[in-house]
């Protein structure tokens, strides 16, 4: 009887599904972060998450209903496309938080047009695999431009 009230005795405070954190670096001086000017970001088929901002790091969600998501990144009118492929692991967190997704074997591929994104690795390759995305404590992906 006592346990049936509508009030919740707990709130979700544990970390849930992580988003992907991206930092932008200077392609000609790879240890230096570099602000992207006039950046707009949207997942294909959805509204923009960032619109015409100048920024050196962003946070983007991955799609838990698919094993892939495609993002459009444009800076000063130049558009590059990032394809992100991954496996989803569903993990129970708690009564109030429910389940979260952990993304494993996350492969990010930049289109070869290199309109403004030059590479995703320090050797400026167009693809990189991230073993797992399970927290938001540090950047997962570096984008060199």
């Amino acid at each position, binding site marked *: *009887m*006592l346990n049936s009230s509508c009030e919740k005795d707990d709130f979700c405070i544990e970390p849930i*599904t992580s988003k992907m954190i991206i930092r932008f670096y200077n392609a000609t001086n790879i240890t230096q972060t570099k602000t992207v000017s006039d950046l707009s970001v949207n997942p294909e088929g959805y509204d923009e998450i960032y619109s015409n901002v100048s920024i050196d790091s962003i946070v983007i969600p991955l799609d838990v*209903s698919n094993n892939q998501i495609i993002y459009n990144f444009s800076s000063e009118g130049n558009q590059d496309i990032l394809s992100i492929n991954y496996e989803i692991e569903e993990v129970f967190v708690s009564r109030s938080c429910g389940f979260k997704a952990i993304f494993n074997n996350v492969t990010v591929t930049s289109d070869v047009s290199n309109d403004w994104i030059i590479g995703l690795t320090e050797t400026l390759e167009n693809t990189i695999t991230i073993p797992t995305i399970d927290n938001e404590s540090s950047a997962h992906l570096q984008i060199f431009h």
Partner: protein
Amino acid sequence: MSANAQQVNDSIPKDSIVYKTNYGLRLGIDLSKPIRSILQDYNSGIEIVGDYRISKKWYIAAELGNEEFTTNEDFTNSTSKGSYIKAGLNYNSYNNWLDMNNEIFIGFRYGFATFEQTLNSYQINIGNSILPSVFNNTPFTQKGLTAHWSELQLGFRAEVYNNIFITFSGSYKVMVNITDPTNFKTHYAPGFNRIYESNTGFGFNYTISYLIPFVKK
């Protein structure tokens, strides 16, 4: 002197009547579960209660039940289903007048449940996101779950008619051992009720019972 006094006492007939009360097996049924299934989000349950008086103040007591309860949370919906037994002692702290047979009792129980829990549906928690979440409603049942707990009860029992008793009682439970489903958690154990974060639980019973008198003492 003392021998004389003893003799005097013995020679005078006692002026008080010894009021005897019934000893026997008392059996009953919990009415709170059927009431809850009408008034609240409670699926179904039945509980048989019984006790046997062993002395003026002490009773051996047990409850036997079966229930089904669905827990609906923000991101999960799960149903627990199974049986339980609770056994222990009641101590009656109430001093009855005359031949009355009422109780304010404190009860101690050991509880054991065997049950299954089905995760009926769940949604992945993605927080604030413009992307859709996944709603999965393929049920997943984990059988063979068990719970062991200790329980402290406080109850009020009144003899409302000859050998017929009404009882209100509340209980505080502390989980001793609980098994959880793979990649999930047991949210409700039959007999224990909702399992709170601290592995504690609460209960409330309203029972009607009948005393089968064996002997008057």
